[in-house]
């Protein structure tokens, strides 16, 4: 049986096309995926992301433990509500998951992990708690819902939908969160647009969804979520990196913090023993066609592979992430094997789109 979120009945009633995603029955689109995509780039759209798992890590050793568990350094977090994106690595330096950690106090953190990896993440964290003997408590919350409201008008429409939320969240800088009553409102997202991710009790989710709909926020499915994050240059776990991939080869070096030489986080030794051999670049197809994952890329510096690809609704052309040798320059022309034909593509720096604007 597929798992369902607290908003499942709302999606079905809205006529959403439902698909299996990591064991969850989720909306892929409600009508046109491209219209949903444009709603987020030009106005406001919302996504049910309740399949992701929120975890609370508390206790005297919480900071110390997370500095061992995560490749990014939570010591950077000193202001309550501040969020940090990080990979959680295995001993070999492969990516177990990518996640967001929110700091509330040195002994209080919220961690949000991917749906498909949630069970193994929790098992891994518990194993590391036991191994290190850290004085921490890890609580998984399946009693919560999460709604991402994204787009240039997302914040204003959220304030309209949630009376009293503006005063508490208008001052939030990007990558900060605030508790507003029962809700955690974070100025984060996965689209390259401004907006909020709102975590709230599952029992209140349907009411908030309806209020947001009434405020003019368009329901959007996983289809638009994927094209938006691709344009925004954001990795998808399981597709752009996994346990066999070093973050250094997956465009995630910026999330690996090596500054504190004494911080022996899990996977550090492996990463230091195996420097990057590849880089993640964007591809823009110069001929007719659509780029997809796992297409072979031919460059002057050797072969590579696309890890994600789609037709970009904003750019109106095919785009992809490609893992290619370090010697490939931005702005060079490469060839991609698409269904047996070699088509030309140009390499670009990621992201492709930010805040509604093309960057290529």
């Amino acid at each position, binding site marked *: 049986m597929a798992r369902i979120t607290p908003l499942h009945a709302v999606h079905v009633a809205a006529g959403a*096309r439902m698909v299996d995603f990591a064991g969850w029955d989720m909306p*892929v*689109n409600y009508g*046109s*995926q*491209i219209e949903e995509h444009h709603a987020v780039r030009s106005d406001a759209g919302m996504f049910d992301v309740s399949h992701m798992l929120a975890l609370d890590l508390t206790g005297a050793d919480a900071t110390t433990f997370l500095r061992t568990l995560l490749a990014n350094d939570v010591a950077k977090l000193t202001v309550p509500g501040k969020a940090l994106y990080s990979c959680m690595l295995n001993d070999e330096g492969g990516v177990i998951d990518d996640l967001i950690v929110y700091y509330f106090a040195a002994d209080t953190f919220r961690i949000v992990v991917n749906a498909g990896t949630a069970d193994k993440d929790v098992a891994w964290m518990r194993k590391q708690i036991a191994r290190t003997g850290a004085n921490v408590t890890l609580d998984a919350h399946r009693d919560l819902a999460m709604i991402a409201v994204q787009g240039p008008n997302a914040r204003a429409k959220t304030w309209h939908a949630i009376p009293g939320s503006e005063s508490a969240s208008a001052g939030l800088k990007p990558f900060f969160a605030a508790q507003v009553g029962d809700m955690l409102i974070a100025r984060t997202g996965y689209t390259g647009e401004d907006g909020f991710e709102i975590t709230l009790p599952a029992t209140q989710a349907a009411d908030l969804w309806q209020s947001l709909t009434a405020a003019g926020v368009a329901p959007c499915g996983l*289809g638009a979520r994927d*094209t938006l994050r691709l344009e925004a240059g954001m990795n998808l776990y399981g597709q752009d990196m996994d346990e066999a991939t070093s973050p250094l080869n997956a465009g995630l070096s910026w999330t690996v913090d090596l500054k504190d030489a004494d911080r022996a986080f899990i996977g550090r030794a492996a990463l230091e023993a195996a420097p990057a051999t590849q880089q993640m670049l964007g591809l823009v197809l110069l001929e*007719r*066609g*659509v780029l*997809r994952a796992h297409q072979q890329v031919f460059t002057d510096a050797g072969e590579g592979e696309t890890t994600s690809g*789609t*037709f970009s*609704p904003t750019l109106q052309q*095919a785009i992809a992430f490609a893992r290619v040798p370090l010697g490939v320059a931005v702005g060079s022309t490469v060839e991609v094997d698409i*269904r047996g034909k070699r088509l030309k593509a140009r390499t670009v720096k990621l992201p492709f789109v930010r805040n509604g604007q093309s960057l290529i």
Partner: protein
Amino acid sequence: MNIPAELKYTKSHEWIRREDDGTVTIGITDHAQEALGDIVFLDLPEAGRVVAAGEECAVVESVKAASDIYAPVAGEIVAANDEALDAPESVNADAYANWLFKLKPANAADVDALLDAAAYADIAADN
């Protein structure tokens, strides 16, 4: 589901219309366009190409996925729909008006053996 009674169909969701000149016109069904979602790219066969029944001869790509289109019967391609090539989204808007290619069957009787609307409706209902 929109499945016109006068057309023939395949299990792989193509529709086939017999024309007066002995050729057949081929497209994808409404059910297929709905399942694919927003169509953004078509790759259509060149006129003159000889195809076997069941041979891959076109590609329909949506934002989500690529889908192969098969020749419903053996024959020779006589035309591709250039207008659809320039406006792939037209197939979403009306999958029966916006055909993909025309083919001259090697054997006219092959077309009779294709699925009728009722048989296709059963298949479409199952997926």
